[in-house]
């Protein structure tokens, strides 16, 4: 099967072509700084809500399990997160907390999101990559301040002192950051610090939290420094990042949160040497050191995970009028310690990418990578074809074939369980995915753009974790035994329509609809796939009255999802929770205004103004209407 797919990729590359512009690539999303501001994004993790083709689920409102473009289940999250092209290891397993990256949204110039398997910054990414590109400071000394507060409706208020008392609901965090930059003609230095707090008082998770910790707050402190300079015929970027977080991280293996203290350290240097007009040499060297242990307020039994990663990558790039070619080699060494269990492994990745411009209207991109890891060889390949049919219509056709080693949820609070699982594996733990995409894009005029797209996924030889959660009314905890099932497979497809229309200079709106369904597969895979909605509809409208004042509103609808892992929840919890999340719709509203000649920016955000009680996970917090206020203060080039 895998060889036939590779042959198909190669043959297709000979007969198909694609267009030089990639802006009709529906799998790529570019979110600009002004998009972030107008849409009321406050936390970095809110970015997931702007990615229409990503499914997401959350228990606490800020850590998310995601499925980018139907390329994965919610299990074993392997989204790659980059800061200025440097891979930043969040040390996450089942839920990704993007807020751990040492940035706030006022530092971000652009977010590039790729949702189709292909090589991205030297890594073959099977299911989603998010690259945060930071703003380049202006010359001289600059600083800015960021502050946000939020609240959710439904608190008891004074009734807490009466017989009509009700539980308190979540305060939605407090976020404060400060950034100091200095820059010259050929260099800049940025320093950054942020602190964040969240209250985990939602009734759905409060009992679980209180049974394992004497403190129900989560806190974070993060800092970073970036030094960027031009030297030796090139540009070089040093990034230091540090994050310490006291949190409650949900682990699927045990079915509830653990009170965790996490420390992330990142040292990275990447850059480019422009050897000739046509040849560049890129490099990336990184060392990360991540630690996870009980937080001081924990009443839970001791656990510990320490992972160190050293990564080095060199890649050569050649470009001329018709060809853009890349060759690269990556070496990774990982050391992981789990209490008294230690392991170490190496990974070597060899990759190449060819972007061939056959003519002004045709080009194709072919990526290929081979990875040597744990005695196994993994093959990955992608072909993307672009064709400018006319001056205002284009077609994209893409295939990919990728292999992954099945990675167990490697951290377990009980290392002996980890060892048992490792021993129970079969020899064949390679998972395979064939993906294809077809999209047609048409611009009726400068103001109206239409895209229709279809995707096909074939997952095969997958190893999946099977859970059957049991609800324990004492402490509201959820417990599970789990198995690993191999040879799982699924075939699924989706269709998408997108319309973008500028009514005037002031008013712009967008419509998005997608339908996805699986049509063949093993029982467990099909059951787990039901946690994704079949229908999704998003409508957003943006009023930019001038460059100082704007309004934005979004309507979101998704159909019912079914979480078979929680099938016993309905009756065991006496219907307090359910394995089904009903179809829901929300409306969000954001109002933004600049003050003091663009030195102060205020944003008032209302989420779910219809006040529909929303769930994003069967045992997660329920959310009512929320409102936030964020404040940015900017001073640029105050001392030149």
């Amino acid at each position, binding site marked *: 099967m895998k060889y036939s797919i590779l042959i198909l990729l190669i043959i297709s590359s000979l007969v198909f072509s694609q267009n030089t512009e990639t802006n009709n690539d529906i799998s790529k999303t570019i979110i600009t700084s002004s998009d972030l501001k107008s849409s009321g994004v406050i936390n970095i993790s809110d970015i997931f809500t702007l990615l229409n083709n990503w499914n997401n689920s959350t228990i606490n409102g800020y850590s998310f399990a995601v499925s980018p473009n139907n390329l994965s289940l919610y299990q074993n999250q392997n989204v790659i997160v980059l800061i200025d092209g440097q891979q930043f290891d969040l040390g996450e397993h089942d839920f990704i907390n993007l807020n751990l990256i040492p940035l706030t949204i006022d530092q971000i110039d652009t977010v590039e999101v790729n949702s189709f398997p292909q090589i991205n910054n030297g890594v073959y990414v099977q299911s989603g990559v998010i690259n945060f590109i930071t703003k380049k400071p202006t010359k001289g000394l600059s600083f800015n301040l960021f502050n946000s507060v939020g*609240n959710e*409706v*439904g*608190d*008891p*208020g*004074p*009734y*807490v*002192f*009466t017989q*009509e008392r*009700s539980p308190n609901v979540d305060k939605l965090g407090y976020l404060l950051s400060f950034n100091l930059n200095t820059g010259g003609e050929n260099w800049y230095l940025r320093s950054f610090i942020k602190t964040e707090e969240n209250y985990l008082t939602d009734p759905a998770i409060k009992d679980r939290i209180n049974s394992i910790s004497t403190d129900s707050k989560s806190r974070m402190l993060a800092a970073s420094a970036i030094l960027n300079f031009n030297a030796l015929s090139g540009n070089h970027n040093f990034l230091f990042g540090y994050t310490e977080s006291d949190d409650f991280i949900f682990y699927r293996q045990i079915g509830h949160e653990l009170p965790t203290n996490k420390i992330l350290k990142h040292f990275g240097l990447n850059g480019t040497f422009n050897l000739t007009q046509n040849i560049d040499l890129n490099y990336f060297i990184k060392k990360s050191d991540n630690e996870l242990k009980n937080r001081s307020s924990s009443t839970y039994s001791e656990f510990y995970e320490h992972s160190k990663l050293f990564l080095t990558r060199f890649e050569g790039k050649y470009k001329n009028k018709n060809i853009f070619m890349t060759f690269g080699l990556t070496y990774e060494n990982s050391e992981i310690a789990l209490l008294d269990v230690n392991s170490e492994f190496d990974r070597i990745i060899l990759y190449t990418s060819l972007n061939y411009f056959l003519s002004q209207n045709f080009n194709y991109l072919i990526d290929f990578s081979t990875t040597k890891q744990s005695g196994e060889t993994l093959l990955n390949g992608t072909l993307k074809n672009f064709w400018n049919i006319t001056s205002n219509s284009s077609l994209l056709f893409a295939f990919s074939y990728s292999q992954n080693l099945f990675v167990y949820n490697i951290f377990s609070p009980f290392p002996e369980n980890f060892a048992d699982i490792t021993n129970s594996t079969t020899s064949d733990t390679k998972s395979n995915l064939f993906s294809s995409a077809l999209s047609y894009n048409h611009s009726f005029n400068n103001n109206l753009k239409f895209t229709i797209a279809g995707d096909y996924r074939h997952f095969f030889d997958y190893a999946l974790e099977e859970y059957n959660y049991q609800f324990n009314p004492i402490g509201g905890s959820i417990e599970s035994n789990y198995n690993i099932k191999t040879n799982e497979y699924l075939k699924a497809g989706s269709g998408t329509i997108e319309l973008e229309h500028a009514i*005037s200079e*002031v*008013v712009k709106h967008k419509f998005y609809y997608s339908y996805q369904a699986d049509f063949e597969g093993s029982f467990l895979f099909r059951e787990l796939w039901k946690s994704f909605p079949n229908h999704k509809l998003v409508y957003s*409208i943006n*009023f930019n*009255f*001038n460059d*100082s*004042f704007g*309004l934005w*509103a979004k*309507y979101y609808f998704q159909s019912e999802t079914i979480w078979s892992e929680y099938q016993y929840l309905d009756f065991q919890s006496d219907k307090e929770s359910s394995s089904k999340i009903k179809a829901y*719709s929300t*409306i969000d509203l954001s109002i933004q205004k600049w*003050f*003091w*000649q663009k030195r102060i920016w205020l944003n*008032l955000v209302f989420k779910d*103004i*219809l*006040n529909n009680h929303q769930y994003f996970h069967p045992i997660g917090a329920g959310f*009512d*209407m929320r*409102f936030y206020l964020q404040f940015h203060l900017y001073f640029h080039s105050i001392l030149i």
Partner: protein
Amino acid sequence: MNKLKILFLILFISGSVLSQSNKNIFNKSLFALSYINSSEHNGLDTYWNIENGFGGYFQTQFYLGDISVGISHTSFKGVKTKYPDFSSNYIYVSWIGEINLPLNSSLGAGIKVGSYLMTFEDDTLSSFQKNESELAVGPYAIFSLPVFSRFSINISGEFITVFTKRSMKFFNLSAGISYSFTTPNWLRRVFE
């Protein structure tokens, strides 16, 4: 579905109107102080008596109508000792549209939205328990009559819904005085 239609209708209308009127933004401003008589209509008076309050706001011309920021303070006395006294500070922003009437008077209607902050007077409570805040929204109307130079007398009525689990629904009747002035350039620069 009706809620949704109304919302987008409002957005479309306000958006298209707002986009056409930028003429007098921030030209004129006013300060106002008012005395507030407040009553609650969703059962809070079973536990607390509401005392009279006071408030103040700053208002300036916006793309359409006027926009203001303000604060209203009210005190609540428990009918029994087990219900602690508390005070509320409603910090809000509002938008108002006005029509001119004879004698240079005006009538306006608008909407306020803000944070309803409550502080409970009970020393046994932790700082977390002592303070509570909740979203509050409501429409209001105001009648304004110039009386002397730049001074006007204002009478207003407003409904406030505080989105606690059991919502609190207030009706406030206010009377007060306002002072209007041409917005100084330094202040205009702050707004722009």
